[in-house]
């Protein structure tokens, strides 16, 4: 690990202000991904600002009937929160499907959104990686790319976002609340929070330098069945090859509305309004499910070792929709 100075933030505003100028500053909360990457010298901040003592640990009902989740709420606490288990089951299940009991006790809501890809070449400092070292190339393109993206990738980067939590929050229409170095606060809808790689894969979110996540806000729970289905190489403690967060409201043989978000497929949690539109008002059955899957993965492209993800995603979505509409 490279040497760094350690500071403790006195307030969210002070933390953001303190991080304003330094491109080499990192906030640390759970640290479960940051320290992993610092040990490998993939991340080498010269200043580390400890935000764990900030008052961002509450889960509160909003006056609209939704939920405000403090940025420092541990993943385990959020998954076990009575309101989340009752009203936002897709989020509880996504959180519980990720990592391990130990890591979920430490990993935070804000940190989970900001975790880095698990692309092997990003982790291996001896290999080219445009995300780690802009301009050096992408070893995953033409390399072993079993876990890589089939949607939204670029010639510069085919990495995937590893979060399960963010996929569920995207399906729930969550928004990220932040404070910037000038003390201004704003709310960023989750579908505009993470970026596609384009030609700047190093830039993964639309946060500005120093901007600190303070909370994630969920609107009131939507009607319908909530499902999180994660397909992976091991039954536990593995990242998604494909995951589907689905919220499906169906009655009397018809689907009223459906929301679908996908993990493991792209540089950000992935949502396809066109696929949801195929389901709205449709008669329950394989014809509608197939039409939705065709729409969801219309632009999918494999890179060799990950070609299997296209039919796998197709089948997983149809299985989830079958389960969600089972009478």
């Amino acid at each position, binding site marked *: 690990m490279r040497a*760094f*100075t350690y500071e403790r933030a006195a307030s969210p505003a002070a933390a953001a202000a303190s991080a304003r100028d330094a491109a080499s500053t990192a906030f*640390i909360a759970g*640290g479960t991904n940051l320290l*992993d990457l610092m040990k490998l010298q993939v991340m080498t901040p010269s200043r580390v600002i400890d935000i764990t003592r900030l008052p961002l640990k509450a889960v509160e009902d909003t006056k609209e009937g939704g939920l405000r989740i403090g940025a420092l709420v541990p993943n385990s606490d959020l998954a076990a929160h009575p309101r989340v288990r*009752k009203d936002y089951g897709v989020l509880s299940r996504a959180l519980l499907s990720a990592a391990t*009991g130990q*890591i979920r006790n*430490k990993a935070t809501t804000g940190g989970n959104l900001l975790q880095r890809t698990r692309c092997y070449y990003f982790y291996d400092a001896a290999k080219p990686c445009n995300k780690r070292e802009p301009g050096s190339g992408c070893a995953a393109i033409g390399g072993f790319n079993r876990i890589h993206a089939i949607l939204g990738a670029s010639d510069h980067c085919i990495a995937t976002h590893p979060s399960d939590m963010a996929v569920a929050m995207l399906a729930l229409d969550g928004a990220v609340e932040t404070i910037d170095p000038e003390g201004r606060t704003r709310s960023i809808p989750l579908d505009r929070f993470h970026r596609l790689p384009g030609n700047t894969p190093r830039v993964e979110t639309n946060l500005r330098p120093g901007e600190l996540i303070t909370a994630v806000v969920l609107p009131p729970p939507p009607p319908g069945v909530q499902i999180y289905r994660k397909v992976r190489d091991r039954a536990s403690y593995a990242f998604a090859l494909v995951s589907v967060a689905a919220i499906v409201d169906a009655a009397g043989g018809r689907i009223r509305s459906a929301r679908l978000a996908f993990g493991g497929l792209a540089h950000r949690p992935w949502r396809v309004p066109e696929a949801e539109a195929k389901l709205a008002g449709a008669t329950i059955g394989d014809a509608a499910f197939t039409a939705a899957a065709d729409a969801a993965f219309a632009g999918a492209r494999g890179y060799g070792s990950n070609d299997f993800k296209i039919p796998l995603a197709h089948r997983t979505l149809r299985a989830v929709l079958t389960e969600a509409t089972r009478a």
Partner: protein
Amino acid sequence: MDGSDHIGTGLRRRKVLEAGSAALALNIVGSETADAQQPKPRTRPDADIAPFAVTLRINGQDHPLTLDPRTTLLDALREHVGLTGSKKGCDHGQCGACTILLNGRRINACLSLAVMHDGDEITTIEGLGQPGRLHALQAAFVHRDGYQCGYCTPGQICSATGMLAEAKAGAPSVVTADLTAPTELTDAEIRERMSGNICRCSAYPNILAAIRDVAGAAT
């Protein structure tokens, strides 16, 4: 270079070869006199990085330390306080050998900075039980032969301690059918909840049996 011999009380003395300096420091593991014989820090802070003063409260005792901020909680426990029960396996949160309890909750000590834990209550395997007064899980692992080489065992036992507390508090897991129903620790639940602890000897059936014994006794 890792010799050990026993002293009168059955406690183990362990000589540790200091990296770089070749100086020997004496650590007394699990001894009540460990405080008095604070081993020297293994790594010196970089000249341009200020060391950070922190007091770690470990197994009910305060340990004032001055640390390079890079020091992980695991390295602080093992190299600075001399509590070598917590093991370093992968050092990346993948194996669980370093699992300790932080304010009663299980975490990977390798994925945390020691300087972040001023004032926190840290419990290691040494604090759970000692020869002659074993924790119920320690006794169950002995009874069920829940190990071969034993390297993962402190992490397994600390993790199981935290896991049983989580289950008692009603926390669900990904294999729980009904998220709002009371927790029932079936074998499938125990396996899922313990997936952060790897055993390379593959003693899983006996680890499961040991944890099941204690889980069953607690309900």
